[in-house]
């Protein structure tokens, strides 16, 4: 019986993860190393990878700052009423529940060129939808819960005692945050960052809707893979997909190592 379960588990694991990975790898190299290199060195591929990289950078930075702040306000913000904090707390999880495509659609409906806000931004020369800012906003929407949900339980666990102690010793909030709170939440922030990077690397639906998938302009690595598949350019699609997969796996391995190091401390 036990053996059966172990076999089944391996089977599911292989079908879902291992076999696709192997197919992806062989697919990327089915025209040899040259085909792989050529797929990646197309100008649209380089541009798409650069777009993805930029989005990852900006989103991770913004999500780091605002995620930590949101976590702190939700846990420590006694000036907000309890009810209000509970409401915000449940809204934070909204991106988990809502499909990214719908998230993207909401942004288009709110900030698109046909709307009041969108027109306003366009007039001051700042294009949001079908441009880089919109893609960042869409990715932020999808990744927002990741940092908050990592940081909040740690803040709750450490409580306010150490921070209060720092205040009675004369430290104001800036110093208290960096010298007392930060060392405690540091590992949570690292996990949150890794998850955010991995998620924004792979984000597809929201970005597809918001970007319009304009080649050499708003195309990201994932939407390029999609387009290559549409054009039956399977080798190229596999090549770009493999690059994304390798990055993601690398990140998750890094996270495992980070966890181990934390246990040592």
């Amino acid at each position, binding site marked *: 019986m036990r053996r059966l379960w172990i076999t089944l588990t391996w089977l599911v694991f292989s079908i879902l993860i291992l076999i696709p990975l192997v197919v992806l790898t062989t697919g990327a190299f089915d025209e040899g190393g040259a085909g792989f290199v050529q797929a990646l060195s197309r100008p649209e591929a380089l541009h798409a990878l650069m777009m993805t990289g930029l989005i990852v950078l900006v989103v991770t930075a913004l999500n780091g700052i605002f995620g930590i702040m949101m976590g702190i306000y939700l846990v420590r913000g006694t000036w907000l009423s309890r009810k209000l904090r509970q409401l915000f707390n449940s809204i934070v999880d909204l991106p988990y529940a809502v499909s990214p495509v719908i998230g993207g659609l909401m942004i288009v409906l709110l900030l698109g060129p046909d709307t009041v806000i969108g027109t306003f931004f366009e007039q001051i020369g700042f294009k949001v939808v079908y441009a880089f800012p919109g893609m960042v906003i869409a990715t932020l929407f999808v990744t927002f819960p990741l940092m908050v949900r990592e940081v909040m339980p740690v803040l709750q666990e450490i409580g306010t005692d150490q921070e209060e102690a720092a205040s*009675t010793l*004369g*430290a*104001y909030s800036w110093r208290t945050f960096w010298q007392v709170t930060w060392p*405690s939440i540091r590992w949570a922030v690292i996990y949150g960052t890794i998850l955010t990077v991995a998620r924004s690397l792979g984000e597809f639906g929201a970005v597809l809707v918001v970007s319009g998938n304009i080649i050499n302009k708003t195309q990201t690595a994932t939407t390029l893979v999609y387009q290559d598949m549409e054009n039956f350019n399977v080798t190229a699609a596999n090549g770009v997909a493999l690059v994304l997969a390798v990055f993601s796996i690398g990140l998750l391995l890094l996270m495992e190592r980070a966890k181990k190091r934390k246990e040592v401390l």
Partner: protein
Amino acid sequence: MHVEVRHLDKHFGQFHAVQDVSFSIAKGHLIGLLGPSGGGKTSILRMLAGLESPDSGEIIFHGKAVNHLPPQEREIGFVFQNYALFKHMTVFDNIAFGLKVKKTRKEAIRDRVSELVELTGLSGFEHRYPHQLSGGQRQRVAFARALAPEPQLLLLDEPFAAIDAKIRQELRTWLRELIERVGITSIFVTHDQDEAIEVADEIMIINGGRLEQKGTPWDIYKQPSTPFVASFIGESTIVDEIGQLKGFEQPGAADYARALIRPEYIEIGLAHEFRLLSATEKGTVKHMHFRGSQWMVEVEVGANRLITYRSLEKDTLEVGQEVHVLVHRAYLFNDQESWIAENALKADPLSVFI
């Protein structure tokens, strides 16, 4: 630092945590805030520290109202119940934190920290982290950290609550001596009356958000001003019908009064052990409990059951034995007032009858 508090009031939602509390504390005194859990002691302490703000009332340090000052500027040291040490900092860095905030010179910090490490007996532990220390050592790091920036007022929230009984005893004595040596005005919160009586110069009894009584431990023991204080300090038995006890039959006063009698107000023994046998009455021993250094005796006198102690040196009593009971005094109270009544027969000199 001279501390004065006027009409302090604090609600937490619907809960009236502190109700119109006023007191003043002389410089250099060590005050114990004593009372049952949830009585508002910690709230008062946190308001003094600036960690909570009062709904109304004034807090005055050195003659200046500090209500609007944040904790950072009140020149206080605060020792938390669970110490709240910075867990990622060494003992040295914990103690040095307040000094670094003040931008003290490096050499001065090193001198002050080693002085405090010496004073708190933590030499050799400077480079340990809090999780590598015992409870008593953490406690002492917390003291040293609070004292390092030379505060004017030291506030301690249940400083011994998390330490086991034996070490608690040592730490109490140590704390008392330390505070005397440093000469700092200090207020500590406790729910343990022995601790308050042993350590404090003055005790404030807090119950239900109100200040019931303030005074030296001896005054509070001798002259409790409310029934709550009388029953909270020391042990006692409540007697509903004090008029039934010999020597307390005065008419009028006793009619509506209930009495609170401490074990040490009662003497119990065989007939030959009393000089004034006429003031005693008969009772029956109901229970004997061995309490390590003495017997605790439950004795039934009429309808009342009293509790007292008896020395191990005297003849051991037995359950069911008839004994003589002398009640020296009782603390009487009714809804309006309270007073202390001495045994009337005891005061009568024998010579009158001769």
